[in-house]
C-alpha cells in the first residue's frame, strides 16, 4: 500500500473527508514510518501555533473617533513648526485618524494632549 504522507497535515487539521480519514487512520495503525511523520508534523504545527501573539503598537479603537477640531489646529501648528525646521518631540501614539489616512494615505498624524508631531508628507486640505 502507498503511504498517505501527503494528507497527514490535513489529518491534523481535521480537513479530511470521512473516507480519507478512515483510510489514513487504519493505515497509521500498521505503519511506523507514517506515524513518525505524523508526530513530526504535529510538533511543527504546535510550535507555530504556540508563537506568542504580538500586540499591535497602534491602538485600534481610538482611531474610530474623529478627533475634536482643536486637534486639527494642533496638527496644523505642528506641521508649520516642522516646516521651519523645529523638531517637536514625538509622543507615544494615542490616536491615528483614519479619515486623514484615507485622504492623504502617506500622512500619519500622531496627537497626544499638549504634544503634537507629524511624520511623513502632509498634504493641505
Amino acid at each position, binding site marked *: 500500500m502507498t503511504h498517505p*504522507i501527503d494528507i497527514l497535515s490535513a489529518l491534523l487539521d481535521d480537513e479530511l473527508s470521512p473516507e480519507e480519514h478512515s483510510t489514513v487512520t487504519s493505515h497509521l495503525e500498521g505503519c511506523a514510518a507514517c506515524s513518525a511523520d505524523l508526530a513530526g*508534523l504535529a510538533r511543527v504545527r504546535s510550535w507555530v501555533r504556540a508563537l*506568542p501573539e*504580538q500586540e499591535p503598537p497602534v491602538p485600534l479603537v481610538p482611531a*474610530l473617533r474623529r478627533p475634536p477640531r482643536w486637534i486639527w489646529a494642533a496638527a496644523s501648528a505642528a506641521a508649520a513648526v516642522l516646516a521651519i525646521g523645529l523638531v517637536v518631540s514625538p509622543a507615544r501614539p494615542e490616536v491615528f485618524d483614519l479619515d486623514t489616512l484615507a485622504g492623504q494615505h502617506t500622512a500619519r498624524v500622531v496627537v497626544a494632549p499638549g504634544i503634537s508631531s507629524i511624520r511623513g508628507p502632509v498634504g493641505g486640505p
Partner: protein
Amino acid sequence: MPDHAIPTWEEVARDHGRRIYNFAYRLTGNPDDASDLMQEVLLRVRRGLAGYTPGSFEGWLWRITRNAFLDDVRRRKRRPTVALPEDDRTAFGSVSEPEDVLAETRLPEHLQQALLALPFDFREAVVMCDVVGLTYDEIAEATAIPVGTVRSRIHRGRKMLRGMLE
C-alpha cells in the same frame, strides 16, 4: 460572527485588528511593516464594507488583507520569496527523525527565521492556518486557489519547517 451579519467597521477593527497585525508580523517578521499593513487593511475594509454582501466574512477579510500585503510588497519593490512550482516535490522528501527531539520546543526567533525562509506561498498558507486559524476553505477563498492546493501548501510548508528546525 455569523455569516449573515454585516459587521460595522468598528467591530472589524476591534475583533480582527490584532489577527491582521499578527498575520502581517509573521509574514514579514517586522513590527513596522506589520503596523503599516494593519492600518492599510483597516482602510480598505472601511471602504469595502459598503459593497460587502453577506457571505464568508473570513474569506472576504483575508482576501483584502492578503491583497494589501502583496500590493505593499510590490510598492516597495521587494518581492516575497520566489515560490516553488507546485509539482516540485523532490527537494523536501520525508525524513525520519531521531526520537530524542520529541518533546523539545523551538524558540520563537528561530521559528520566525524558519518561516521567513519558506517560499512565500507556503509561508502564507502556514501562517493563515496556524497563526490566523483559518480553515482550508477560508484560505482557498482568501488566496483564490483550489482547496487541494491549500492542503498541499500547508503540508509542504510544515515539512520544510520541520527540515529546518529538527
